[in-house]
């Protein structure tokens, strides 16, 4: 019995100096070292990835200089300008976000505000099932079922708006089942579960007293949502949207199968295009030399963009958390 109390001594003594300053028992020190090394390991792996990929891409960076943002990607002529792929990634991610965010936030509000708890559980279950579908299954469904069907819809819309100033430039011909828009729609399906579940959790943390206060003052449900829920949860929802954006930008196989693989910059959303992860997946197998270095360089660029977006997301969430609690 005395041995038991002796072991518990340092931590149990009231008013003692900071625990880390004292000699910790071997078990505690060992655990501390283990936990610290695991945390550092993650950081080291991240840095190693960044360093080794930049090394292998350096041939492309030094050969092209600022030409890495050129608009022509022609392996046969040894020209590797990535602008078409950056454009494709941006456009498909934008389409995915525009289509997915209203739907996801709407579902989240439905589940927390409108629907009784018993009904919300099966809906949550089904939404989470969407997240479980593998990326390659989305891609196969897209290219075998969705693209042929929607290609006909595109050509009907295309011939209808052909010639009208802005609509014609956006939705006019050339149209193809595998296009920017199809990839954007598939990506929207894929990011909806993430944005929905994160938004739902954020909205659920709004204190009930604020919501009831709004109702007590005579607000309609919409006024309660904009007045009581939105100020509290806008930071968290923005963070969820940016997380979805990061996923949409990096999605590889689904985009590679349905985006059409044509390295062009065009305003026509129904035309085939290409994006950074898709072109890396499609062209890496046979690439060598400068071509291979250029594809790895695209990976470095994508890595950099996703890090920047994540930093922006964290800043926004952090700042609104401060404002929220103030």
């Amino acid at each position, binding site marked *: *019995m005395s041995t038991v109390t002796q072991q518990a001594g340092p931590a149990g003594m009231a008013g003692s100096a900071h625990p880390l300053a004292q000699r910790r028992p071997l078990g505690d020190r060992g655990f501390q070292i283990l936990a610290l090394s695991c945390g550092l390991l993650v950081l080291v792996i991240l840095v190693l990835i960044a360093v080794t990929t930049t090394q292998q891409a350096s041939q492309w960076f030094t050969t092209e200089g600022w030409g890495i943002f050129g608009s022509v*990607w*022609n*392996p*046969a*002529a040894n020209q590797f300008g990535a602008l078409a792929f950056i454009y494709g990634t941006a456009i498909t991610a934008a389409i995915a976000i525009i289509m997915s965010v209203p739907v996801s936030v709407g579902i989240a509000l439905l589940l927390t505000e409108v629907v009784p708890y018993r009904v919300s559980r099966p809906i949550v279950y089904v939404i989470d099932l969407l997240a479980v579908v593998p990326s390659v299954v989305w891609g196969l469904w897209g*290219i075998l079922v969705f693209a*042929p069907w929607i290609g006909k819809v595109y050509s009907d819309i295309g011939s209808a708006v052909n010639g009208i100033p802005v609509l014609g430039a956006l939705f006019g011909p*050339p149209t*193809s089942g*595998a296009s920017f828009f199809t990839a954007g729609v598939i990506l929207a399906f894929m990011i909806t579960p993430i944005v929905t579940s994160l938004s739902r959790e954020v909205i659920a943390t709004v204190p009930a007293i604020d919501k009831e206060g709004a109702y007590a003052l005579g607000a309609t449900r919409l006024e309660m949502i904009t007045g009581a829920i939105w100020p509290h949860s806008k930071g968290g929802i923005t963070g969820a949207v940016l997380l979805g954006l990061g996923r949409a930008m990096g999605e590889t196989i689904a985009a*590679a*199968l349905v985006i*059409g*693989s*044509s*390295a*062009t910059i*065009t305003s026509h959303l129904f*035309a*085939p295009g290409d994006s950074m992860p898709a072109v890396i*997946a*499609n*062209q*890496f*197998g*046979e*690439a*060598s*030399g*400068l*071509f*291979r270095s250029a594809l790895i360089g695209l990976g470095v660029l994508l890595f950099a963009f996703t890090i920047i977006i994540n930093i922006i997301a964290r800043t926004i969430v952090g700042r609104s958390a401060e404002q929220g609690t103030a």
Partner: protein
Amino acid sequence: MVGYLNMQRLRRQRFTAAGIALAAMALFVAACSSSSSGSSGSSSSGPSGTLNGSGSTFQLTFQQTAIQSFKSVQPNMTVNYGGGGSGKGRTDLASNVVQYAGSDTAPIPSDEVANFKGKTVLYFPVIIGPITVSYNLPGIKSGLKLDAPTIAKIFQAEIKKWNDPAIAALNPGVKLPSTAITIARRSDSSGTTQNFSEFLVEGAPGVWKLGSDSTINWPATSRGGNANGGVAQIVKTTAGAIGYVDYADAKASGLTWASVKNKDGNFVAPSTTSATEAADNVTMKPDLTFSAIWQSGSGSYPVTYQSWDLVYQKQSSANVTKMLKAYLGYLLGDGQKLLPQLGYAPLPSNMDQQAKAQLSKIGT
């Protein structure tokens, strides 16, 4: 207090018992699996071990079939072929991840030579295959006559309809519809694209402007499919489509294909015999590299290509040398008989002899 300590001891005993049981199970499973693979090797005298290869997907079906039949010839050897593309194969060989690499390009491109650190690489041709120009025109069977300049203009979207005068001039008496031409091509990089575009560079100089590489800047109206199967699917499901598909995949999908005009001026259909005849007419360099594209010969199919297995001349292990000679010897010997039913063509006999003779160069 005593009861609490007893409970702790009991829990500790339970955990240690469970741990010992798990460790015993793991050892038992490991012992079982190692004994089943080790004991059968002691009785016969052939080489034993594992041989790894990767690279060209053109060779993939052939390698997988040959590996299966090779098991009955050398039951103690396990061969694995990972595919992944010729570029990946050469990279893997340069970093010693694999012992042999499949490559549709030989010799090794100049920007990759440095990766091999001056070590000599031997090239063994193992497979020949035709690339079909397949189309989907209801009512028109296989055998539509096309020549290289016309094919070049079609794939550059300069000829847009099937009843264009250039196609009609080559096919007098055939009623061509006015359907628009849909170009089907590869969305992924491929040796098939490289060799098809090489055919257009050599057969239609001045007309074909897009160059030759594993990826081409196709016209924006073209449709991309993933792998030969994807292009075959586009051709099969789109009326008026035309695309370049490996003979094996075109046969498997039941496509109709064109007879292409060769260097001698004859319109030849793709087949095992016309591909082997094209390969028969090549002049091989001393290191056994060549190109079967656009070869002379009255019955040669002009869009025929080839693939090699690359190995280092100097091997560090005598066992690996034996395994390589056994497996490559099989590919060049009985393995060649597997090719026609898979939809490829065997090497012509003098090429086969020279490749077999080169096997003796592998050594320590």
